[in-house]
């Protein structure tokens, strides 16, 4: 369907925690411009896979290949900040904001890896430093209005509603200038209206040229926006394909509803 090279290639990735195989030999590709959904029951290894891709964990086995702006490369063992600099941003299942800082500062921090001023510039407020600070603020405000939080720029981030905190995490991630955005259960804790506007937001993100990979339990949401799905269960990939195929896949139904359900 898409002739372009994959943006991310997960190739036989395994992750072991002591005796627990959280991931075993998972392979799939993320194509640019296609929303990929990562689904599976609780404890399937979805977040662990994100953590491997984002550099929080090093895979025990397998390869991660990311097509960064300057060419494809193997990224196993790269640290999170390096992955962010390469162009992979992420949000967290259990929101991790800089809670005592303002909404604006949270997003400004996202610009860190795209800016360079150091101690000297900070102390002497050189022209270059001031210009950079101005650009950081402009960029941050652009992403805040993108997610609809412009009016809350000076709120302390912990004072935001749950749904707004999720949006703020997305804005912070976008501010890092990613090509690939990993969203870990962005709709968790959102009310139906918030979820509906999240769908619009994800489409807008894609229009910005950022490819989204999404972990989500809300099947209606997943089926409506993902063009491609990868299903994990007990650390193994049990299915992959378009939403329609996945919905009818007996293995998937079994994983979600238990043995026997597929035949019911």
């Amino acid at each position: 369907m898409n002739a372009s090279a994959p943006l991310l290639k997960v190739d036989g990735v395994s992750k072991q925690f002591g005796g627990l195989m959280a991931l075993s030999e998972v392979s799939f590709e993320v194509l640019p411009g296609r929303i990929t959904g990562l689904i599976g029951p609780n404890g399937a290894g979805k977040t662990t896979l994100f953590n491997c891709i984002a550099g929080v964990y090093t895979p025990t086995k397998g390869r991660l290949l990311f097509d960064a702006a300057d060419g494809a490369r193997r990224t196993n063992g790269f640290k999170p900040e390096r992955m962010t600099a390469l162009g992979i941003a992420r949000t967290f299942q259990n929101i991790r904001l800089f809670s005592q800082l303002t909404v604006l500062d949270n997003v400004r921090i996202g610009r860190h890896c795209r800016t360079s001023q150091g101690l000297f510039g900070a102390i002497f407020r050189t022209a270059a430093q001031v210009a950079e600070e101005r650009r950081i603020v402009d960029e941050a405000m652009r992403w805040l209005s993108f997610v609809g939080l412009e009016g809350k720029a000076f709120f302390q981030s912990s004072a935001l509603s749950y749904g707004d905190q999720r949006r703020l995490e997305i804005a912070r991630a976008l501010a890092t200038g990613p090509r690939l955005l990993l969203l870990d259960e962005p709709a968790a804790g959102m009310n139906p209206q918030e979820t509906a506007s999240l769908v619009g937001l994800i489409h807008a993100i894609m229009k910005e040229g950022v490819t989204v990979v999404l972990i989500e339990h809300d099947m209606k949401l997943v089926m409506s926006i993902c063009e491609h799905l990868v299903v994990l269960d007990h650390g193994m990939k049990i299915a992959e394909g378009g939403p329609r195929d996945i919905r009818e896949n007996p293995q998937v139904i079994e994983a979600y509803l238990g043995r026997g359900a597929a035949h019911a």
Partner: protein
Amino acid sequence: MNTKTLLRNALLLAVLAIPLLPFAGDYLLHVLTLIMVYMVLAMGLNVVPGLCGMLDLGFVGFYGVGAYTCGLLTMNYELSLWLILPIAALNGAVWGILRGAPTLRLTGDYFAIVTFGFSELVVLFLTNEIWLTRGPLGLPGIAPASIDLSWLSKAINPEWDWYWEFIGEKPYFYMAFVMVVGVFFMMRRIEDSRIGRAWFAIREDDLAAASAGIDVQIYKVIAYAVSAAIGAVAGSFLARWTMFLSPDMFKFWESFLVLCMIVLGGLGNMTGALLGSVVLIAMGELLREILPRLGMPAETRFIVYGLIMVLIMRFKPSGFLPKIADAALHNPIIVELRRSLKAKGVV
């Protein structure tokens, strides 16, 4: 100018005028200078536990390194204080990095234990390396600070001799004042910059910080270096002010006292650090007077400090000025942004 800046400037002027008052004797000026030395220390320490969120129990080590660097350079090479200050700051920063780099992977309590160990090591070194430090005898008779511009004045007119030696408390008072103002503005600027934001991010959540693209380890090292450099500057001043150093001036209690100051003022708030220094030093002086009259040794004041900390933890756990990153709100770029958002009716 709003009322807040007006008030602040008035306060600064008032402080500057104190030495001119008839009742301002040496004792008062001495105590005020001491407060200012602790202000510098508190701002320096604040960088690590306050901005970065790492508990540091051994800050006094850098104070000691700075003081002895200055004392020894003065006694052995008769260097000018103005030359020593940057050397001592650099030496402090080097030790900050040497202490910080191997402990980067340590978090929480483990890091705190290492910092404590470091400052004890400094005291042991100062006590035992007698060939260098004269050990427990200390360094007596360090020359006072001076400003020597005679090379300039003599060039203009051979009769002129622009040389001032700091005699009495007054010049030190003014020098300490300049130091406090300088460090304060420097810290406020760093706090409100890319580096300061990176520190706050680490303090709030280091995984989220890394995911936002911050190299957590590098920014911790920068914090250790800056913090230690400020501690060493305070130490250099101390050496030329008291003109005597001994290892027991840099015991753990000093670290604890400075830590109390920033906890009291509000971790991560530079104004809070100033406030904490005023409160605890002023109280220390009062207790030093009062306790002996009640038949208790002056050292019992540490019990009172402990009590205060317990009360703070109970009733005001984030200190008097708990707000962090508030320097950013006064940045012209941000002020302008707020105004334009208001004008657009967004906020």
